[in-house]
């Protein structure tokens, strides 16, 4: 039993060490954009433009759900204008960034993990090394920078879709008017919430693409290994996003 716990702990320490080495290597490349910029733009398009539809759908549905639930909870106690405030506050501070991150983790994180994992098990990473190329420069940094860039507009779009869908739901399902929704939204809107949402975007973008790249580069065991890698990438990213969100929440409270 103790032996097993010790082995697990050792594995965790090893992962932390390897991730730290990859993080340092990534940071060392970042000040040299000429080496990765064009590849990063390709990745930003792949992550951002290709994931836009899904982010709009999920953002819109979460705004609609938030409006309905807020309306049902408040209907007999408080003014309905609070629905607008609930949707705006909820979308900007939590649902917009977190749900977008989870969507991108499922779509892009799994994709990066599987892509790099396949490259690893088919010797393409080793081939890159023997050809004198650095996998961090060629594969990791473009994905990380692309993810950081793409997450900002994605979260803006998710917030907008959620607030818009919340309004549509409020005026069509709940006993309230557009004026009440807007009044509530304006009363409870803080610019700090918007800024906080935009601060989370690059942090989540980095987390998703970095973890997916790290897990992908450590894949082993053929096709089954690649499948396990994609799953591990998504699970690790979602856990990391939730942990970071919990850590960031008191920071927002202190700032706002």
């Amino acid at each position, binding site marked *: 039993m103790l032996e097993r716990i010790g082995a697990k702990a050792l594995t965790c320490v090893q992962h932390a060490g390897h991730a730290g080495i990859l993080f340092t290597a990534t940071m060392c490349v970042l000040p040299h954009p000429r080496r990765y910029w064009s590849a990063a733009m390709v990745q930003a398009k792949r992550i951002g433009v290709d994931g836009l539809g899904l982010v709009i759908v999920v953002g819109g549905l979460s705004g609609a759900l938030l409006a309905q639930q807020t309306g049902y909870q408040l209907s007999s106690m408080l003014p309905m204008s609070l629905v607008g405030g609930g949707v705006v506050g909820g979308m900007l501070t939590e649902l917009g960034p977190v749900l977008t991150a989870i969507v991108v983790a499922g779509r892009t994180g799994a994709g990066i993990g599987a892509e790099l994992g*396949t*490259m690893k098990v*088919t*010797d*393409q990473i*080793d*081939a*890159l*090394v*023997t*050809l*004198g*190329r650095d996998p961090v420069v060629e594969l990791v940094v473009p994905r990380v920078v692309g993810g950081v860039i793409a997450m900002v507009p994605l979260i803006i779009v998710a917030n907008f879709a959620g607030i818009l869908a919340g309004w549509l739901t409020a005026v069509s399902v709940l006993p309230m008017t557009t004026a009440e929704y807007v009044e509530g939204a304006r009363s409870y809107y803080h610019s700090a919430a918007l800024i906080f949402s935009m601060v989370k975007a690059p942090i989540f973008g980095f987390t998703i693409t970095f973890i997916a790249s790290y897990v992908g580069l450590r894949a082993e065991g053929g096709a089954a290994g690649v499948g396990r890698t994609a799953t591990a990438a998504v699970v690790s990213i979602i856990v990391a996003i939730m942990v970071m969100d919990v850590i960031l929440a008191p920071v927002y409270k202190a700032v706002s």
Partner: protein
Amino acid sequence: MIEIRSLKKSLGGKPVLDGIDLDVLEGESLVIMGPSGTGKSVLLKHIVGLFDPDEGDLLVDGMSVPRADGHTIREIRSRISYVFQNSALFDSLTVEGNILLGLPEGHCRRPDMDCDKLVLQALEHVNLEPDVLRLLPAELSGGMTKRVALARAVVGHQKYILYDEPTTGLDPLNASKINELIAHLKNELGSTSVIVTHDVDSAFNLADRIAVLSDGRIRALGTPEELRSSPDPGVQRFLDPTSALAGSV
């Protein structure tokens, strides 16, 4: 010249290479043979610095691979091409993109370099037509994939070419064509070749010298003729498994 000195490596606690001493001479074709799982590919990966040995040293043109700093390892790798067992072409790049990767980074940005010409020459070396340049690896047959991998290995005119099981997964006709190509490339380009294989016919056709690896050690080393007349029953059993089977029956 490649010098391997008392090289030891364990993987997963199991010794794979157990004190290898071997020289690869300039311009020769050295074939490394041995049963599966005896560390042939692991040895090859040490030469290019993909593995670090537990003990011993490995020198390429006098430069130690395990002790090389970033600049030196880049210099060593710029002298070596590696043909992987499964070709390891990049799925997202066309044939042209894959072959261009065989040239040093930034080479094609130099105004005096005609990279299109170099790519076409490499294709000619491996008997492929220019119309494959726009294809993706997924659109190629097994034999063509190997040829593109060979083209990538020769486009930069590196001094050493390492082949890891170059005919694995090919039918006998394609395997024989790839062997002919390897021999042709050696004669035409004058490169030093290290070829890992367990195909005995390929080995005797391609080798100037053959090293037989067994239990992590060099069991025999010599010209094909010397190995054929080796008194070592282990070597004979490996070189002619059918006679060994007949003997056991």
